[in-house]
C-alpha cells in the first residue's frame, strides 16, 4: 500500500493531512505514532478507503483504493478498533461470521466449521457458542480480532486496540499480533498511544505531527530524545531497562 502526495481536510477547516507520501512495508508490522490530533486516525481512514483524499492518491496493490468496491476491499483490509459496539446480544460465532460476509452471498448461512480456524488462531475455539458479553474485555477484543482474521485480509489495521485493556491483556494481544504477523505474513498497521509498545513490536514506525510525516524508519531511528521531545512537545528521556531495552519515559515538571 502506498500514499502519494495525499492531502485531506474536513470541509472549511485546516488540512489534517498534508503532502503525505509513504508506503506500508509488505508483510511487516507498521506503527503510526504521534500526539493527539496529529492525524493518525484520519490517516488510517484514508488507508482503509473510508474517506477520499482531496488530492493525491492511496494505492492498494497498485490500484487506487477508490476503485475497489466495499466487498472487494473487505477481502483485503480488515479493522479492529479500540472498542466495538453491538446493538443486541451476539454469540461469539455470530461476530466471527460477520468476517466471512465478503466471501458469501448476502443471504447465505455460514457454517460453524468455517470460522473455527479463526477462533483457534486467537485461542477462543472453546467459546464459539458463548454470548460475547459473557467474555472479559481482553477475550472480546480477541473475538473481534478473529472476526477480522476471518476476512483473510492482506492488511490488518488495528486502531488503538489496547486502549480499554489492562496491561496483562495488552501484552497478550500484542504477542498475538506479533505471532499472526510471523506465521501468516499479514501486513499489520497499528495506531498506538503507547510509544514503548509501538517501538517494541514494530518493524517500521511512522512518526506524525500536524498531519505530516516527521520521521519514518525502524524503531531505533525513532529513539531519539530530541526528536520525540519535539514531536510530543514535552521533555522525554530514553532510559535503558535491563530486560526490556530502550524505554521512553516522560519527564513532568
Amino acid at each position, binding site marked *: 500500500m502506498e500514499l502519494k502526495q495525499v492531502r485531506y481536510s474536513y470541509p472549511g477547516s485546516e488540512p489534517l493531512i498534508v503532502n503525505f507520501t509513504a508506503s506500508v512495508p509488505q508483510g511487516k508490522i507498521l506503527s503510526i505514532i504521534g500526539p493527539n490530533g496529529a492525524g493518525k486516525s484520519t490517516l488510517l481512514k484514508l488507508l482503509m478507503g473510508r474517506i477520499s483524499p482531496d488530492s493525491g492518491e492511496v494505492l492498494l496493490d497498485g490500484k487506487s483504493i477508490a476503485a475497489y*468496491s466495499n466487498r472487494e476491499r473487505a477481502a483485503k483490509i480488515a479493522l479492529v478498533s479500540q472498542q466495538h*459496539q453491538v446493538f*443486541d*446480544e451476539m454469540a461469539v460465532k455470530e461476530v466471527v461470521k460477520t468476517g466471512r460476509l*465478503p466471501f458469501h452471498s448476502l443471504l447465505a448461512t455460514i457454517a460453524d466449521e468455517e470460522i473455527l480456524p479463526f477462533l483457534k488462531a486467537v485461542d477462543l475455539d472453546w467459546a464459539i457458542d458463548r454470548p460475547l458479553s459473557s467474555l472479559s474485555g481482553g477475550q472480546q477484543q480477541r473475538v473481534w480480532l478473529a472476526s477480522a482474521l476471518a476476512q483473510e485480509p492482506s492488511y490488518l489495521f488495528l486502531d488503538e486496540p489496547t486502549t480499554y485493556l489492562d496491561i496483562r491483556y495488552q501484552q497478550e494481544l500484542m504477542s498475538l499480533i506479533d505471532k499472526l504477523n510471523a506465521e501468516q505474513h499479514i501486513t499489520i498497521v497499528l495506531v498506538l498511544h503507547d510509544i514503548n509498545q509501538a517501538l517494541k513490536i514494530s518493524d517500521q514506525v511512522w512518526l506524525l505531527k500536524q498531519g505530516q510525516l516527521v520521521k519514518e524508519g525502524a524503531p531505533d531511528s525513532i529513539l531519539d530524545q530530541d526528536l520525540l521531545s519535539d514531536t510530543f512537545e514535552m521533555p522525554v528521556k530514553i532510559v535503558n531497562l535491563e530486560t526490556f531495552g530502550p524505554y521512553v519515559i516522560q519527564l513532568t515538571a
Partner: protein
Amino acid sequence: MRKERLAYGIICLAILVTVIVSLMLGTQLFSLSELWQAFTGNRPAVLNTVLTFRLPRIVAALVVGGMLATAGAISQSVFRNRLADPTILGVTSAGELFMLLGGFFLPAFGLQKLILAFLGGLVAFALLANRKTLRHPYQLIIVGVALNLTFTGLKQLFTQGIDVGNSLGFNGMTWSSATGLVIAGCIGLILALLVAPWANDLKLPDEQLAMVGVPVIAIRLSLLALVVYLSADVTSVVGTIPFIGIIVPNIARYFVGHDYQTILPFSMLSGAWLLLLVDTVGRVVILPSEISAATLMAVIGGPFLVILVQRGGFNGIKTG
C-alpha cells in the same frame, strides 16, 4: 438447542389445541365428537358453520398474528430498538389515514386499500427515520408516539369522531378476504425468513458493516419495505392490532435466544397463536356480542410494555 426444540414443540401444540377449541366455541357450542362427525361427513350442518364462519376467521387470525409479530421483530432489528413496533410508531395509523382519504378523494382501483396503507406506512417511516431517532432509542419512540397520535387525530377529524376503524377486525371474516390475506401474508413471511440474516447483520454498527462490505443502507431499506408491506396487508384488511409486534418478539428472545434466524420463525408461530387465542376469547366472552382483538390486545399489551421498559429491556443496546 434442547430448550429451543422444546419451545417450538410447545408452541405448535398450543396452536393445534387453540385451533380445535376455537372451532368448537361460538354462538353454537360443538363438542369434540360433533366436530369429528362433521369432518367425517356425518354432520353437514355443523361442517357448514365451521367451514363458512369459524375456519376463515381462525386462518385469518393465525396469519395476521404471524405477520404482526414478524413486522415487529424486523422493525426492532432495523431501528436497533426493542420497542420499535409499526403499531406504536404510527406506521399503521398512517396507513389507516391514507386508506380513509383515498376512499374520499380517489376513484376506486384494484388493491386500493393495500396500496394506500403501504404508501401511508412509507410516509410514516420517512417522517420517523433520521439520524437522531436512529441513534437515540427514546427519541424514536417519542416521535413515533407523536406521529401515531397525529395520524389518529387526523383520521378522527375527517370522520368527525366516528371511529371507522371498528368496522374492520375479524368479525364477519369470509374466505374471500382470508384467502387474499393468506396469499399476501405467506409471501411476506417467506421473504422475512429469507432475509433473516440481514436482521442479524444490523446488530453491528454501520461503520463495521461497511468494513465487511455489507451494503447497509440497501438492506435497511429492504427490511423497512418488508415491515411496511406486512403492516399494510394487515391494516388494509383488519385495521390496527397493537402490541403483538412488541410482546411476541421480546418473549421469543427469552425462549429461543437472539438469533433472528430463530427469532423470526418462532415469533411467527407465537404471534399466530397469541392472536388466535385473543380473538377466540374476544369472540365468546360476552356472547352474543364480542370484544375486538385490537381492544383486548391493547388491554394486555399496555401493561406488558410498562413492565418491559421498567425492567430495562428497552433498547437492548449493549457495548460488547
